[in-house]
């Protein structure tokens, strides 16, 4: 197990560095092609050249390599890595520390993602197991139909539709009934800071919706296949009860691909979080990124992207390790 862990780590580090390099290269490329972004900050006004130069120096954008399109600016890359390692992610164009901004926005996104994970795991796996056990019967067909719908509806459409449905129609109805405030918060159209969990319920479901569909289908397929396997036949031949054969022998094996999928899904969730936060106006990392994108604040965008990528890669690493715990065969590869 130890050797396996080390091998995964050795694999992880170059990939992390490589991905960060791509982000870095994209940024330098965009500067090289589109010119100095500082200038665009001022809109129509034309500040004196010294101001522009001073700001350019302050943001570390005066490196000559930025005048050569295509130059990967390796020096800048390592310098940036060094800064990141010290926790310095720079500032945005309003001189606010990026790391600060991120730390303030992160908890909200974390809550949102956790809710999404809970929804997709609990509902997804339950639905998948039920469908797999009652193959071709009503439950199975219902689950297959509803998951296909969940998968086909793009996240933003689902979000928009649910927002209208729950926020407007059900929300008004609930408010007219005079329900307690936390119930109202669940059906509110946007995020409410004094109900940090309740108001994230619907967005959490939207975020997890797509994955819920995949997880249910994956669980179902995996369970059906496992139930046909030879070792399940052996378990039956041992005279074990059906509950034990399915619940212990079949389930454990069939959940392995599902658990790994959930781990990998963290990356997709982060992308979806951007969209969901945009729709529901949630001031998390997604909201932060949006604002930055709209205002062309590339340092913020790059910093957020880098951080999220790191989170994603760490999650993948943990999933790989978890996989080895669940499936002993992997440890000896």
């Amino acid at each position: 197990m130890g050797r396996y862990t080390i091998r995964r780590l050795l694999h992880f580090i170059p990939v992390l560095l490589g991905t960060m390099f791509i982000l870095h290269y994209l940024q330098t490329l965009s500067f090289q092609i589109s010119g100095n972004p500082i200038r665009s900050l001022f809109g129509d006004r034309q500040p004196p050249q010294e101001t522009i130069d001073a700001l350019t120096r302050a943001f570390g954008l005066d490196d000559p390599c930025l005048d050569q399109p295509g130059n990967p600016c390796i020096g800048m890359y390592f310098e940036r890595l060094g800064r990141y390692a010290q926790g310095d992610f720079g500032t945005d164009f309003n001189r606010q520390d990026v790391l600060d901004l991120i730390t303030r926005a992160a908890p909200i996104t974390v809550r949102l993602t956790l809710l999404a994970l809970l929804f997709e795991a609990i509902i997804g796996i339950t639905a998948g197991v039920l469908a797999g056990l009652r193959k071709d019967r009503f439950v199975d067909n219902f689950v297959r139909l509803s998951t296909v719908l969940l998968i086909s509806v793009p996240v933003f459409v689902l979000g928009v539709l649910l927002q209208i449905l729950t926020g407007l129609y059900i929300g008004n109805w609930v408010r007219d009934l005079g329900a307690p405030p936390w119930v109202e918060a669940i059906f509110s159209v946007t995020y409410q800071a004094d109900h940090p969990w309740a108001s994230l319920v619907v967005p959490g479901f939207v975020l997890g919706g797509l994955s819920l569909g995949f997880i249910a289908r994956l669980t179902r397929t995996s369970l059906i296949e496992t139930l046909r396997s030879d070792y399940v036949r052996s378990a039956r031949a041992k005279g074990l009860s059906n509950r034990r054969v399915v619940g212990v022998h079949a389930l454990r094996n069939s959940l392995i691909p599902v658990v790994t999928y959930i781990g990998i899904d963290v990356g997709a969730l982060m992308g979806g979080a951007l969209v969901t936060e945009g729709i529901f106006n949630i001031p998390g990392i997604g909201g932060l990124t949006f604002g930055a994108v709209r205002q062309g604040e590339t340092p913020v965008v790059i910093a957020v992207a880098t951080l999220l990528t790191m989170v994603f890669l760490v999650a993948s690493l943990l999933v790989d390790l978890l996989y080895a715990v669940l499936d002993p065969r992997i440890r000896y590869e």
Partner: protein
Amino acid sequence: MSTSAETMTMGDPDRAATRRKDPLAGLGFDESAPLLQVRDLQVEFHTREGVAHAVNGVDFEVHAGQTLGILGESGCGKSVTSQAIMGILDVPPAKIAGGQVILQGVDLLKLPESSRRQVRGNRIGMVFQDALSSLNPVFSVGWQLAEQFRMHWGYSKGDAKKEAARLLDLVGIPDAKNRVDDFPHQFSGGMRQRVMIAMALALDPVLLIADEPTTALDVTVQAQIMRLLEEMQQERNMGLILITHDMGVVADVADQICVMYAGKVVERADVVSIYDAPAHPYTKALLESIPRVDMKGTKLASIEGLPPNLTKLPPGCSFHPRCGYAKDVCRVDEPPLYEVAPGRRSACHFYEEVLSS
């Protein structure tokens, strides 16, 4: 291998006292009755192309301490028969359409599923062909062995684990105590098969069914496994049903042989008679198709044609399209199991001709 002194304790009467519960007490098993009697067993499969008669009226008996070999090609119904005895067929698409499976006087087919389940693994043990896929890959072998003791007999985890280690040692796994926590993929093919045998024998069954136990193994390992099965059977006075398509493997170990074709028993005899002088064209053809060293340079004998479609069996004798002895009556009249000699039967109208050629 453990010494015989140790092994003697396995089937020993003191053991019965340490069993915390025997769920089979109320079912009326009669130890003086014949061990297993299968009468006119019929199993159908409902497929897209029609109803396949996988087992079409099979009769045989197994006695304590005796080994019955069931021989036949793929698709002849031998595995389905054994699975019907165990009660692990997928119903649907399978359906037990008739017959009796009488274990020590009790017709298993008439028992409710809950009782059948208690019999499985407890009174009848089963060993499958591919141990790698037949053992659960994510649990240790010790855990899988111990499970039997915990679930059927209510043993504690500690006691069950001790039994598991004992079993592993019994079947010849070296360093059994330390290998209890190992996983199936950490064993070699032959060792894994021993583990499966241990699992089947865990609760001292009176009958052991081995479905192609050596097909997936090397020849030398095959011999070891067969010897192990033989030993276990004799020590416990178990009945053993050995299912295979390999005539060589079964010759050593079996007392009686049943040859199956297209869901029916076509010949049934003691092992010596069958190998010496088969009384059915199919058995004869099977024997002749085994390549022998002294046949070097001659053409390999094979049986012409293909096994029949079980949804559309040919009329009359199912084997007639491929039979060298077939005459007109074979196309029309399905042969019953004629008595060739006391204790010997053959489902061929012309068994005398086959015997004398």
